């Protein structure tokens, strides 16, 4: 362990450290240990006591490229991302602040569009943006625009949600198709150039989590799988809870175009980013009901039960369409198009 830490200190930050996979996870674990709990618990939001209530508090930075993409823009993303981190903690999102770092030369009309997107997303999520900050840096010192949002929410009193809370017999639910956001973004990147109708699934999850949280303590874990995809989110749950999760490949919703684009690029849809999906680990006794309720919501139309939690060594496995069984690993390194 000592040797590994020493080697890591000698290295430089690489893109892999920001990809949301195992390399990021390791670095973030080391950093948050410096700050102790609740940061070190690595939940999507920190939950702190506030008198008789509990508050959820979270922050996120957004560096998406391109800034405008099919299905949204960095403004919508920055609001939904933070709303979702609050929502999956079991909180009612209340207030956000937004801090922007803009590169000299960025079009004001584009900046206005982004701000309007933020307002629209905030209204939809029922939250207010109550403050912010703007910094401008010289041309070349930031890539267009970077946005940070911080959010605060009130924890619902009837839930006890935590990443280490999965229990044997629990079922795993996903709110819809996976990989849409990652493919929508990749389709806009120069150098890969493929065209598709896939739009980012960027959306606020507060209404969906509201539905799920009606089931109180029967809801164990909620996560919004972003970078690193569903695979990374499930692995985080399995590792923290010390349990085995087995999912069924034929139950995982993947849009045909997303599957095809992944095949073209050599990507595993399980590891491709999402921005509007909810993973919920819930008691087996209420899974069916929760799934049916989610389907009534516009963001949960394709909700599905995809797996189950078992006692056993922590890890995530998948029963393949072919009838075999294999491990589902966390994304390692930066996501690269594979050809060979």
């Amino acid at each position, binding site marked *: 362990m000592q040797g590994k830490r020493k080697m890591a200190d000698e290295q430089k930050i690489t893109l892999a450290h920001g990809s949301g996979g195992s390399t990021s996870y390791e670095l973030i674990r080391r950093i948050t240990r410096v700050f102790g709990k609740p940061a070190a618990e690595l939940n999507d939001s920190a939950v702190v006591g506030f008198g008789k209530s509990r508050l959820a508090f979270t922050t996120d930075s957004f560096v998406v490229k391109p800034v405008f993409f099919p299905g949204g823009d960095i403004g919508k993303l920055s609001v939904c991302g933070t709303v979702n981190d609050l929502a999956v903690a079991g909180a009612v999102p209340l207030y956000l602040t937004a801090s922007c770092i803009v590169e000299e030369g960025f079009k004001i009309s584009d900046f206005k569009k982004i701000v309007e997107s933020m307002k629209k997303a905030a209204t939809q999520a029922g939250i207010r943006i109550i403050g912010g900050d703007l910094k401008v840096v010289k041309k070349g010192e930031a890539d267009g625009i970077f946005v940070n949002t911080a959010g605060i929410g009130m924890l619902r009193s009837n839930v006890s949600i935590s990443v280490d809370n999965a229990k044997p017999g629990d079922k795993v639910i996903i709110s819809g198709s996976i990989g849409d956001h990652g493919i929508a973004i990749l389709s806009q990147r120069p150098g890969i150039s493929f065209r598709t109708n896939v739009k980012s699934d960027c959306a606020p999850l507060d209404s969906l989590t509201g539905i799920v949280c009606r089931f109180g303590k029967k809801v164990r874990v909620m996560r919004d799988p972003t970078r690193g995809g569903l695979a990374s989110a499930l692995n985080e749950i399995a590792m923290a809870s010390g349990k085995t999760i087995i999912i069924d490949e034929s139950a995982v919703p993947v849009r045909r175009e997303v599957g095809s684009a992944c095949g073209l690029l050599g990507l595993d849809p399980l590891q491709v980013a999402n921005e509007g999906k909810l993973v919920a680990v819930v008691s087996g006794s209420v899974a069916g009901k929760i799934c049916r309720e989610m389907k009534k919501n516009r963001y949960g139309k394709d909700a599905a039960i995809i797996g189950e939690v078992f006692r056993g060594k922590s*890890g995530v496995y998948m029963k*393949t369409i072919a009838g075999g069984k294999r*491990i589902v690993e966390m994304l*390692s390194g930066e996501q*690269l198009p594979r050809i060979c």
Partner: protein
Amino acid sequence: MPAIVKELHREFAGPTRFMEVCGTHTMAVFRHGIRSMLPPGLELVSGPGCPVCVTPAGKIDEAIALAGKKGIILATFGDMLRVPGTRSSLEKQRAEGADVRVVYSCADALKLADETGKKVVFFAIGFETTSPTIAQTILDARRTGKKNFFVYTALKLIPPAMRALLESGEVKIDGFMCPGHVSAVIGTKPYGFIPRDYRIPCVVAGFEAYDILESLLMLVRMKKSGKPEVANQYCRWVRTDGNQRAVEILNSVFETSDAEWRGIGVIPSSGLNLRKEFLEFSAERFVDSGISAPEEKSGCRCGAVLRGAVKPTDCPLFGKKCTPDNPAGACMVSSEGTCAAYFRYAGKKKNG
């Protein structure tokens, strides 16, 4: 259980070892969870069919040096980005400021040369599936008079590697699952020497679970019958003669040469070099001589893994000092490396 799996169990006649010679097959076997469906005693071993894994560390060191040169853009397939050379990798060099770009196609590298006007060197690795695409791009570069496009090649051929493995006799192999997409280009005839000279059956196999299971069944049957031959399971894409046009284009630009395979050594006539008339596209002119001799990390058993002599789990570094996040050897870094596949899909357990 699907009918084909039942048949495989029924016809299986005792301890058997088949080798799949293709990184994409290694991955497909794991991705579909094939091993969990096989009869006990049917062992699948991986061979040196991962072009990234068999690229010598010295070549990677040279590519890294090229990337660091002023005015040069090094274009590479994504797979090569994290492969460790002796001291560094292209990814680490990029973090240090080298201009390294990931491309999906060699043609994209040529486009890059067009758009930037800078010298673009394409790091060309691959087998017979990929080599014709590089040959065609070079022909396009010549036709359009490009003076700033170069290739740094480490292209290899599969059948000579299979022959070298059989000659060494290091691993007893009862049959080969031949690479489906290489065969789409070269056809099925180049494997003829295997049943003829070594009495071992071959099946050219596809990559879906059914393709692999059917290919294994065909191999099991041929082994039982004692009549080895080259059979084609992947008929929808593989013809006996392959794609003659692609082969002609390949041969017009490249000629065979001896090549060094990481972990195996030099295999005669197993590599491709630019023909004399296309040397203007060679990036060799930018390579400094005297790059120090590379050494493999002590304990790394990539070589033995690539020859099918040991399993990844037999390597002392596997899962401990060597993981996908901290790879010691190419087999762990490449997305199709045997060790990476084992780690990703089977964890640290012995059977997938």
